[in-house]
């Protein structure tokens, strides 16, 4: 049995109770409307105070292909994806045989009763739910029936696990935003299924949920919505974008919330503007134009779009224009795995542009999409530079149980901007002169009424006064100043988060969405006598602290969701002296990381050592 599957073996006689500790996989067909049902299950468990996560493993398709939704509930708070689930909700006849094979030993199979399949596993507990019949009897019009049929498995599962029906109803009310008719129709099916199960089925398995003392201040939200809200509280005023999975819901989050939050209450004026551009080239071009003009501006995209943004990124770097770029990473180019997760844009984002250039990259973990959403603008304007925020499909599109959003604890930093009055006092200014020694010049915004406010913006070839120059010394000095600016950035970006365990000689380094898997792996390893320290990177440039952490451990595992070990490569560049202490734990199969991968790699190496 796999290490992290802590399913107690169910014996035919005395059934072991497994409370608040299991994974559910819902196997359905894309486009069948199961999203609502899955969300309702997740939300109900969350409302009962149980740590929970939900992950949608979906194909690049609108309707017809197989799709899986996994829910993990874990009282101890470990909610990373697992390789195996204990509970299967089988609603897809084309995958049921395979789905059944993948179920953990002694697991549960809840299935639609009009689906004939061979019950090949003797160790599994089977429960049939008459989903189609209950949908027909619900009074829903024919076109809605396939959708409400999903509610039958919600009702069946509620009976099986003891999910409180009142929470199911509240979750439905939240989903349908109080539309009473829709709530009644769907909840009717949930109740009917629950009643059918109670009257006709006998529970033989040990899985149960129990209400836990609710941890105050937790919310359930997807990373893209959190990022959008963070940006709004960061004052984003202009956003241009081009649709792409898995980034679209970030821009759509802006579209949803900006009118609610950024319309002037007295005048009714919009204090924002969003443009769906003709492509990502245009999207970043517009965002750069707006940033140059002085608005807080951003764009959001995924890898293919980021590729198109390379030239403008380079220009923003050299022209020193503030702009925020969210990259919600997915697997590589073209068609195939666009709906699968990856952390594969790291090197590209850091070095994006032509010629020299190292970009500031923020790496939010699950709890930080909101915070980095607003912080990115302070950094962009302070540093007068493009700021890249690397999220990914798992972080962005899946629901996460995270601490509620904290209001920014700092006033907005609008960076170094000279007003007409400043210029009157100073008599003029030099756009690219390092007057403060931090590598950052002072800028003016177009529209500044002072006759000496204007400067000419271009990529390369400018002196301190922004005048055209191809003088080698002038350019070299400019590059030296940009290097100083990069050093300044190091002191401003979020520092890494370090967690120690006593007696540890193993270092783990990770970032972003892999955090839950790494945390769980540390727990499992520690139980097996292998304590570890963990450094979670939150930004590039790397803090000096990273080097100290690497130095403390004979072996540091660099954990990441890509095949080339991109973070490993970067760390080797910046901390070459510790290269020998680093091991790459690069893994890339399109799915969120599981603890097992990390545990296995660390244990295998320990075996070799012996």
């Amino acid at each position, binding site marked *: 049995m796999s290490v992290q599957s802590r399913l107690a073996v169910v014996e035919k006689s005395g059934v072991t109770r497994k409370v608040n500790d299991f994974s559910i996989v819902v196997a359905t067909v894309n486009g069948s409307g199961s999203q609502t049902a899955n969300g309702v299950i997740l939300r109900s468990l969350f409302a009962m105070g149980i740590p929970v996560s939900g992950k949608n493993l979906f194909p690049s398709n609108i309707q017809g292909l197989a799709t899986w939704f996994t829910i993990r509930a874990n009282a101890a708070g470990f909610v990373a994806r697992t390789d195996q689930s204990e509970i299967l909700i089988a609603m897809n006849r084309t995958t049921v045989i395979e789905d059944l094979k993948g179920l953990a030993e002694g697991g549960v199979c809840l299935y639609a009763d009009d689906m004939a399949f061979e019950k090949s596993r003797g160790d599994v507990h089977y429960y049939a739910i008459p989903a189609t019949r209950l949908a027909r009897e619900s009074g829903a019009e024919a076109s809605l029936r396939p959708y409400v049929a999903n509610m039958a498995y919600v009702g069946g599962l509620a009976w099986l696990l003891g999910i409180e029906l009142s929470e199911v109803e509240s979750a439905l009310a939240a989903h349908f935003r109080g539309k009473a008719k829709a709530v009644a129709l769907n909840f009717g099916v949930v109740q009917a299924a629950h009643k059918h199960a109670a009257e006709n089925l006998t529970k033989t398995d040990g899985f149960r949920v129990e209400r836990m003392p609710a941890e105050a201040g937790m919310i359930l939200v997807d990373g893209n919505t959190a990022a959008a*809200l963070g940006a709004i509280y960061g004052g984003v005023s202009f956003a241009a974008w081009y649709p792409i999975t898995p980034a679209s819901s970030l821009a759509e989050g802006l579209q949803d919330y900006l009118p609610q939050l950024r319309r002037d209450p007295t005048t009714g004026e919009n204090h924002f503007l969003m443009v769906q551009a003709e492509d990502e080239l245009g999207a970043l071009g517009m965002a750069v134009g707006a940033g140059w003009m002085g608005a807080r501006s951003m764009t959001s995209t995924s890898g293919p779009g980021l590729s198109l943004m390379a030239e403008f990124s380079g220009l923003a770097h050299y022209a020193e224009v503030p702009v925020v770029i969210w990259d919600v990473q997915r697997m590589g180019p073209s068609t195939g795995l666009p709906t699968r997760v990856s952390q594969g844009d790291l090197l590209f984002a850091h070095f994006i542009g032509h010629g020299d250039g190292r970009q500031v990259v923020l790496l939010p973990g699950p709890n930080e999409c909101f915070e980095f959403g607003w912080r990115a603008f302070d950094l962009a304007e302070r540093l007068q530079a493009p700021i890249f925020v690397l999220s990914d499909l798992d972080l962005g599109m899946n629901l996460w149980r995270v601490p509620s959003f904290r209001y920014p604890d700092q006033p907005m930093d609008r960076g170094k901007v000279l007003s007409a009055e400043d210029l009157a006092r100073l008599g003029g200014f030099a756009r690219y002169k390092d007057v403060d020694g931090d590598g950052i010049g002072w800028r003016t915004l177009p529209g500044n009424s002072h006759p000496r406010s204007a400067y*000419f*913006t271009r990529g390369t070839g400018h002196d301190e006064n922004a005048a055209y120059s191809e003088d080698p010394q002038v350019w070299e000095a400019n590059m030296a100043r940009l290097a100083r600016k990069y050093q300044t950035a190091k002191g401003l970006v979020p520092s890494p988060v370090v967690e120690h365990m006593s007696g540890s000689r193993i270092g783990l380094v990770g970032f972003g969405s892999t955090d839950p898997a790494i945390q769980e792996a540390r727990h499992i390893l520690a139980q097996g006598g292998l304590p570890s320290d963990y450094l979670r990177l939150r930004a590039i440039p790397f803090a000096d602290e990273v080097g100290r952490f690497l130095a403390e451990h004979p072996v540091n595992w660099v954990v990441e969701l890509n095949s080339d070990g991109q973070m490993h490569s970067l760390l080797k560049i910046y901390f070459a002296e510790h290269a020998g202490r680093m091991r790459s734990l690069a893994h890339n199969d399109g799915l969120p990381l599981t603890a097992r991968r990390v545990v296995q790699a660390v244990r295998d190496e320990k075996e070799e050592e012996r």
Partner: protein
Amino acid sequence: MTVATAPKKATTNLIGLEKSDYRGLETTLCQGCGHNSIVSQIVAVCFELSIPPEQLIKVSGIGCSSKAPAYFMNRAHGFNGLHGRMPSAATGAILANHSMRAIGMSGDGDTANIGMGQFKHMVRRNVPMVYIVANNGVYGLTKGQFSATAEQGLELKKGLQNKLPPIDICLEALIGGASFVARSFAGDPRQLSTLLKAALAHKGTAVLDVISPCVIFNNKDESPKSYAWGREHEEPLHDLTYVPERDEIVISYEPGEITSVAFADGSSLRLKKIEVDHDPTSRLAALTLIEESRTQGTFVTGLIYVNPTQPTFVEISGLGTTPLARLTPAQMRPTEETLRDINARFA
């Protein structure tokens, strides 16, 4: 025709600025380059119209033509962006502060080759700006390659002949939904100046395709983008007079010959028909005109199409009066109370 509003020969304009306040750096373009003539007209027109230089931005792509903004209006902020991508940067800048005027400078390669997509989307959006294409049918800055506006059969360098038909920038603009389309010739300063004034008065995207000979790579007399050819073949559509809002209008035309286009700012353009009877408010007439002149091998200049009331992107965007770039932190960051509300929705 007699016009009583001949420009006054004052040394300062209405806002007290001298013409030198509208100058830029010394040009580094070749002597005789058509682009220089365009620059001179921009300086003259902005001075004459008393446009505050600090209230204007200059944006451009890449090319000899796109260098031009450095050579006019030093007191206006300039943004020399990427090859073919001026429209997007300009769009973002203008939307971030729609109280500013904008003059965009592009080339035929910049607009009709690499930048065609952005160009068409910009005119479709009707972003408020003057969009000048200094059209020489060639890539000047990269030394003489054909651009997409080069005539079929043209030979520029030894042995190389352009086998493809040219793209007509005015036609593309029209099809893209542009609200102001005009063509002029760098060798016709009077007409260019009048059209520039009209373009600056127009509230949406004003596309000005200016044939601007490249004296180094494309000025052979037989080339349709040369000075000689232009002078020989130019057929102005109308005799144009621009009447600023403030000037009393005393024009003596023969009645029935004059069309007038009134712009949102109160100024107007008077058009006196010359030979062709062209109604510039008809898109169909404009399309026909371009097609006819193409088949006849003529070179019509003037105001080809205008719709002075077509809503601009700023108007349809729901933007208020405060420019986005001028919002205060209090206007930008919602209150803490609203966040409690948001948190409650996800709890």
